[in-house]
């Protein structure tokens, strides 16, 4: 295991896409120290910014400590192994991830797990905006894997989702699952407005309150819903279909008891 500890708190953004298990594998500590990163517009090395130590444990492969809120692109495109981040981390963590595991004990920045294909991201704090959403102009949403968030998440989470599961213990911001095609998003608490906007497929399960867009239509009431192979949630749930303006067939499961304001939809059943 390689432990990286930030030597100071960073005042400008640090881009460190080199911090992945693949990149560190087979390298000596001196070689790892020499890996290039940028601090603002300065080209520096990992050793300039972090204290590096090697310990014999196998997992996790990499541990990061310190004030890392401005450190971006950690674990970018990683394929295997495990990274543990003790504290907050900056944007684009685990972007284009294709396997392995990232554990973040604090909060994650925006675009965490963006365009990820496989693997697991565990966030014990809050997830940022654009969690598991693609880069601007793309529709390459998350394809597979699992993201769990213990806290809340920001806006535009799970855009263009094409597979995989996102579980959020807290509440979610606006535009959750925007234009999602497939996959599952489960929010235990409330959602901000416009949940599931433009969705064409997939499943969003909401345990708390939310507002339904006019372009969704009620389909049925179901007693419970399966989130993944091991979890199923009991409701009862209103099931909404949408987004009609996109001719979508996405399913929005809304906890009936938490949403008495939606009772009038029952007349269409």
């Amino acid at each position, binding site marked *: 295991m390689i432990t990286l500890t930030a030597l100071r708190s960073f005042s400008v953004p640090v881009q460190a896409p080199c911090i992945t298990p693949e990149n560190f594998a087979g390298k000596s500590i001196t070689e790892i120290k020499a890996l290039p990163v940028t601090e603002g517009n300065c080209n520096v090395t990992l050793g300039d910014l972090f204290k590096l130590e090697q310990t014999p444990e196998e997992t996790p492969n990499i541990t990061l400590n310190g004030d890392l809120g401005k450190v971006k692109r950690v674990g970018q495109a990683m394929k295997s192994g495990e990274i543990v981040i003790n504290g907050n981390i900056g944007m684009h963590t685990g972007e284009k991830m294709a396997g392995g595991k990232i554990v973040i004990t604090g909060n994650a920045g*925006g675009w965490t797990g963006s365009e990820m294909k496989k693997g697991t991201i565990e966030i014990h704090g809050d997830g*940022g*905006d*654009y969690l598991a959403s693609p880069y601007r102009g793309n529709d390459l949403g998350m394809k597979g894997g699992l993201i769990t968030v213990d806290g809340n998440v*920001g*806006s*535009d989470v799970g855009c263009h989702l094409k597979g995989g599961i996102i579980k959020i213990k807290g509440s979610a*911001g*606006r535009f959750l699952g925007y234009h999602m095609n497939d996959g599952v998003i489960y929010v235990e608490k409330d959602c901000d407005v416009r949940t599931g906007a433009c969705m064409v497929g997939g499943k969003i399960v909401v345990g708390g309150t939310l507002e339904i867009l006019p372009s969704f239509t009620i389909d049925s009431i179901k007693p419970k819903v399966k989130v993944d192979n091991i979890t199923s949630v009991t409701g009862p749930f209103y099931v909404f279909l949408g987004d009609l303006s996109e001719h979508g067939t996405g399913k929005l499961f809304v906890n009936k008891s938490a949403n008495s304001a939606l009772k009038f939809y029952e007349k269409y059943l």
Partner: protein
Amino acid sequence: MEHKLLATLITGRTIEQGVGKEKGKGSEEYFDSCAVCFFDKSDMLSLGIKNGSTVRVTSKYGSVIVKAKKYRWGTTPGMVFMPCGSWANVVCGDETYSMGMPLYKGFPVEIEPAPDQPVLTLEKLLLQQFGRNSA
């Protein structure tokens, strides 16, 4: 008569503000057109204020004194309007939802009459907000 009004604030352009900003940010026109807040008639009644009364507009992000004016064109109870400019900025928020645009329109503010409190000029407002100005 209530002493506080909870309203939704919209900031935006007015032609007077446009004229004012082009004449110069230190100009009287700019001050007159920007250090104001437009109300619906009914809200003014409930607050007990008149055209030209000073009011305090407070949001989560800050608090500013401006002059109250009646909105001319239509009815907008519960909604107040401030021309964009340094005064409105004090109450605007920094929340961007990760897309670069801060909070300018459609957020809650609290308004109370502030009789006898002065509306700060641009120079004084800058000094109050940032501790410096052109002096």
